[in-house]
């Protein structure tokens, strides 16, 4: 079975500061890795994904994530956040099947 741990339930930062949202996973098989974002009253939107190849993955809105197999991590980063990045962020893995296995989410609040 797979599981995803997002260590921080809430992350407050100031505008233009860098941010890192942490994600660790466990799996006995190879997985694909994803980050989704949910803005208020909207559905989950795919930010980026790692399927294979380069371990540094770039996504939408200036976000990037790095897959670290030895540490089983897939942390999400942005060098300079905006107020509009305030949202909930979900890390997910897939054991090469139809389903996504999600973490509990991290609420990012960007303050002026």
């Amino acid at each position, binding site marked *: 079975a797979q599981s995803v741990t997002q260590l921080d339930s809430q992350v407050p930062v100031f505008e233009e500061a860098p941010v890192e949202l942490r994600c660790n996973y466990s799996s006995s098989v190879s997985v694909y890795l994803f980050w989704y974002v949910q803005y208020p009253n909207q559905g989950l939107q795919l930010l980026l994904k790692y399927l294979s190849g380069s371990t540094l993955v770039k996504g939408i809105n200036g976000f990037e994530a790095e897959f670290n197999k030895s540490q089983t991590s897939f942390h999400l980063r942005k060098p300079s956040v905006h107020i509009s990045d305030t949202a909930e962020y979900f890390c*997910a893995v*897939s054991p090469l099947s139809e*389903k996504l*296995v*999600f973490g509990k989410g991290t609420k990012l609040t960007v303050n002026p």
Partner: protein
Amino acid sequence: EPEVTQTPSHQVTQMGQEVILRCVPISNHLYFYWYRQILGQKVEFLVSFYNNEISEKSEIFDDQFSVERPDGSNFTLKIRSTKLEDSAMYFCASSPSGGPYEQYFGPGTRLTVT
């Protein structure tokens, strides 16, 4: 931009009642999914559906649950006899290609069972 829509946004029902949650996937998508998120917990996979058949389901998806594509545009989740623990946000998703690669999610239906 096309999007997945879900109705209603909030449904309140009494324990033991049947509920049907409705979703309109993106029009050229062929794969459909339901997930749920109990308050304060993780988003959990329920079921995937392709070519009018369930392709994968979780252990949560027991005989109380069923899915249907009654026409060319809707995708529904039925809960036959709701329990208090069915209270959750239910997300529908669709994908053009199957697998986990590109699932597009709706805004969710909040189900409250009293």
